[in-house]
């Protein structure tokens, strides 16, 4: 599977879970939101978004249903499950730990 090069492995999962935790949405909206909130810093190709979503679905973290979209067409909407919420907490905690540690290191004064 091709991975967006500038995303740390596994962080795409975290982002998707977080976005879907805020509200349930379809793939297109997810891609728009991802671009929006990250200020276009995080580049996720439109194509590779879907394997990531399908993976989360198959893990049981998000669930999908077909319903009318904002432009009144049928689209697949994803929502977080209970398991997904737990997973999000876990991954967020992990991320905090990791980024905190990295920040600490980066802030070390050079001699």
């Amino acid at each position, binding site marked *: *599977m*091709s991975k967006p090069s500038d995303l740390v492995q596994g962080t795409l999962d975290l982002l998707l879970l977080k976005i879907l935790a805020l509200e349930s949405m*379809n*793939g*297109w909206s997810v*891609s728009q939101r991802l671009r929006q909130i990250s200020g276009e810093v995080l580049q996720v*190709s*439109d*194509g*590779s978004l*879907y*394997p990531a979503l*399908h*993976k989360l*679905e*198959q*893990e*049981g973290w998000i*669930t999908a249903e*077909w319903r009318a*979209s904002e432009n009144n*067409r*049928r*689209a*697949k909407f994803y929502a977080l*499950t*209970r*398991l997904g919420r737990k997973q999000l907490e876990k991954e967020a905690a992990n991320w905090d730990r990791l980024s905190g540690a990295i920040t600490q290191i980066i802030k070390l004064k050079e001699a």
Partner: protein
Amino acid sequence: MSWQRWIYIAPLRLRSLFRREQVERELDEELRYHLERKIEEFAAAGLSSEEARHAAMRAMDGIERHKEECRDMRKVNWLEDFWQDLKFAVRMLRRTPGFAAVVVLTLALGIGANSAIFSVIDGILLQPLPYGDSDRLVIVWENNLRRSNLYNVVSPPNFLDWQAQNQVFSGMSYISDLRGNLTGGGEPEQIVAEYVSANFFSVLGVNPLLGPGFTPENGEDGKDKVVALSYGLWKRRFGGDPGIVGKTIELNGKVLTIVGVMPQNFNFFIKQGTLSGEKPEVWSPWVLPPAYHHRKDIGRFMTVVARLQPGITKARAQTEMTAISARLAKEYPDFDGNWGATVIGLREQISGDLRPALMLLLGAVGFVLLIACANVSSLLLARAAGREREIGIRTAIGASRWRLARQLLTESLLLALIGGSAGIALAVWGTNLLLAASPSNLLDMQKVPLDWRILSFACGITMFAGLLFGFLPSYMSARGAIAETLKEGGRSASAGRHRRTIRSAFVVAQIGMALVLLAGSGLLLRSFNLLLRVDPGFDARNLLTFTVTLPSAKYGSDPAVLAFFRHLVERVSKIPGVRSATTESYPPMSGLGAATSVHILSQPAQAASELPTAAVRVVGPDYLRTMSIPLYTGREFNDRELAEMRHVALVNQSFVDKYFFGVNPLGQKLAVHMKSEEESEGKPSEIIGVVGDVRMIGLDTPAEPTVYWPHPELVYSRMTILARTSGDPMAIVSSARNELHQMDADEPMASIVTAEQLLSDSFSRSRFTTIVLGVFAGAALVLAAVGIYGVVAYTVAQRTSEIGIRVAMGAQRRDVLRLILAQGGRLIVSGVALGIAAGLLITRLMAGLLYGVSATDPLTFAGVALLLMAVALLACFVPARRAMRVDPLTALRYE
């Protein structure tokens, strides 16, 4: 946690599997929705609809690829892929049925034959015997140093001294067997009883299934009237009566109390030491009578089993027994001079005769397995070469390596699976066949469980070989040089050459191994053929033998016994279809007989252990005519000599050659030491005739010096009746039984068998080995032929265009033929040379199984080399003919 997960996951998985089309449609729709929104976005930004579409497609960078990635996420596609691969593999195999059949057969042969042989060997040589700590059990024999008989039965006084003096055994037990008539409660029947020391079962470490068994008290005089039954007898005669312990049976007129029933798997039987040559059905304690403590009064007749003390090795026990024997030889030079002792493990004793044969087959079947591996590898290698282009293309259009690997793996596994199943079937069938073909007189085993460890080993190794050589090369080449492969039109020259070298090496090795097997098989066949042509010295055709034992309780006196057998012979010889009849102390070719030292009175007297030895056989009237043994000089026994003791004897030619050195044997007097010393020396027997040699032990054993006595000289109460018939000997059995029962209705007729059967039993081991090795060698020949055919056919296919060019440039068909055959010929000659070199080394190991032919017999080697070369050349000729017919136009267009 995990079960909660499955609440979400399970419906998805099931849906992916069983609603595949819907899932696919949804995937399609989801991505299309995205694409459309993307197009709208680009259109809104001012692109034309065509431009917007292209831009959107670019932004999605390869929808199909992402679809495949989404499918991968479903985690069931391995199953779908597997199913797909399987269908594809089946299709591939069906398109090349010849290839598939050969691989499957090769695998089946390799796996099946190996598992069968290993299972049988495991059953016979490796499985623990059903006795406590059976590795510590040994058989102790006397060792006749002059006749080089390592395994001679033991005399009671020697046993007693061994027992008293040794420090190496924790227990020693003696066994001697007798036929006995079991009467009371049903038909009288003759069974074999073993009379043993009271510690017999405890030395063996076996407890009875029912009852207490023997107690030490049973070894005291007067308390020994007890008996243990075999499981078989208990079931057969007593219907498995659970309350049998405490009841009685009557054996030879003696009442014995049943104290035990032995377990079903208790089958202790050392045929070599028995008088009856048959398995016992009851065991009874036997106290050695006081007379048996003196060496003058009793000969050697017992089998001795002993248990090594913990920490004592067989070698240590042998050293101790040799020392004790040397002491006894000094103390009793007359009886024990030139006698030693042999200690042999129980297992070696039991498997003795068959062991070298089985070891040979084990080696042979290993070769078959190697050849099979080489063949499978070679075939898969050729196939892989043919598929390089396909694999190259598939890699180029985006098949992942793992995906390709899985497909190739599936194909190999499918082949292995079919081959393995066929192999298992062959193994089951082969094990039963081997047991059925194995000599029942040497090996008493009806059933051997198929050994699953062995089966999986054989399956594993052939599959491994197949995978290694079939799958790896294609995989590697797919990784390495996709572009090259495609550029070269599917013929990667370097990889091809490398592969050809490996395959050629396989073929050379295969031919070499096949030659070794053929040579071994040829040697066995030649020696078997020579064995069949050996003249046993008597005419075995149309000769019936059966044995009658008279109980001493009923026929106590010698005259009664003599009269009974004389009358029986008279009656039998009058049966229509019987030409003549006689009696003899032991049936011919049964390996049974008595032997003793003989003092020729015209020669100086010596210690008994220094005197000549001879087999002693006691015979009835009309013996020479019935057996068709020639009388060289002198005369036969007359009626008087056959009715009462007249001190006469016949000797055979070997006796004369060995002991008389040109002196006329007629009229010479012999003291044959089968009786007490005074009687033997005081009333020696006069030689009245010399008769032809008879091979009494087996066809491969030369005739022993033999003394024939008329029955009155030594009154055996057990005699074998021999009847020469004009037709099928078995046809007169019921008449003979009728005659016997008219004389005594309680007398059973035992060991009814034709002399031809006895003869055939005597070379059953040779026949068994010859047949099985012959089958292996045949299989090896076929496999090697297939191997070389495969290599040459592959080369022809590879070189079709080259051959086309040659023909176009004027090469004759002959030249093409020569070109192809030369390639095959080089492989064949190298293989044969390798095989002869290896064979000359290896066949030496089987020298002990050969008769009358040397292990390096040049004629056999030349013969099998020619046979192998002819078959291999024929295998080359088939593809060579195809090459000859290559039409240059077609060949070039094909390119």
